[in-house]
């Protein structure tokens, strides 16, 4: 059968992995759930955040220093697990933490899975502000593979954008020989005095193969 992917986020302790402590992870229902990148949006909200709430809690561009978006929250549409809450803070996002975003594969792959960022689900362009306006190195979306090692303090990561700037999720060790959990950390870093405030959607994609 085709290898299947589960995407999970750690909402308790980013020092423990999914295999040993599955209760610390929430499986993202990719059809209904989504990630919210915000400065002050509350953890454990009892309703789905409105557009007004998202705007009021947006990150503020700093005139002097680059700013890492403070929070990533998992918007759990079903709000049936971990209590009646719609938002859950993703633990360890952007920090020197290893077990934050988990890509769990239930079987082997032919090549190494990778994380990508695109403007839309067409996976054709990466020219939005957040993705560097066509210059992948300027993408604000940073990613780092943490499957085998910690990312380090103040990790820089890869500027995710398009087909050339991707994160290999098995740390460059190649294809998966069987079921395996891969990990990454991500953050959005806004350059100092960035001139174009915007509310932008973009697409994070996992590309993988099976036989």
């Amino acid at each position, binding site marked *: 059968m*085709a290898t299947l992917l589960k995407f999970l986020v750690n909402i308790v302790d980013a020092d423990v992995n999914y295999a040993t402590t599955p209760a610390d992870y929430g499986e993202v229902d990719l059809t209904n759930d989504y990630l919210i990148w915000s400065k002050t949006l509350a953890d454990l909200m009892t309703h789905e955040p409105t557009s007004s709430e998202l705007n009021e809690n947006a990150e503020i561009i700093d005139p002097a220093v680059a700013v890492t978006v403070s929070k990533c929250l998992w918007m759990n549409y079903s709000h049936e697990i971990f209590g009646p809450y719609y938002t859950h803070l993703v633990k360890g996002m952007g920090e020197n933490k290893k077990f934050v975003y988990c890509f769990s594969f239930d079987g082997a792959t032919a090549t190494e899975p990778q994380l990508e960022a695109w403007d839309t*689900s067409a996976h054709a362009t990466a020219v939005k502000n957040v993705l560097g306006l066509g210059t992948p190195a300027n993408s604000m979306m940073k990613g780092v593979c943490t499957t085998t090692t910690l990312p380090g303090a103040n990790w820089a990561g890869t500027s995710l954008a398009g087909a050339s700037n991707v994160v290999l999720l098995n740390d460059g060790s190649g294809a998966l*020989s069987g079921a395996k959990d891969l990990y990454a950390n991500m953050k959005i870093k806004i350059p100092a005095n960035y001139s174009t405030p915007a509310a932008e959607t*973009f*697409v994070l994609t996992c590309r993988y193969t099976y036989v």
Partner: protein
Amino acid sequence: MNKPLFQIVFTDNSTFNGGNYQNTKWVEIPNKKIRTLFYLLPTGDYLGLGGYERFYHFVECTEDLSGEKKGIKNLEFDYIIGQKKDYTTVYQIDLKTGCIDLKNIKNDDKFLTKLNPDFWR
């Protein structure tokens, strides 16, 4: 009835039929020398491949974690690969457009060395 993704004729004249994109049955191919492999093209025709030492096949897909099509497994490319002693032929089938790209590459090409070696047949 849907056509099998591939049909194999072994050197002992026995045959094996593949499945579909959700269950290709590639790993179920018996451990016997393949004489000819017929691979299903988007047009519904079969591409015949013979004279190769061994074959490889895989499907490349994407799954969006955000955006309007999140949660949908998108089949992007299908690869059927035949290897001879001196070179390897790679057919890349674009499953969105139906276009087929053919390349002959050296056997030590990085594309091949990065493949999971368990799935050569």
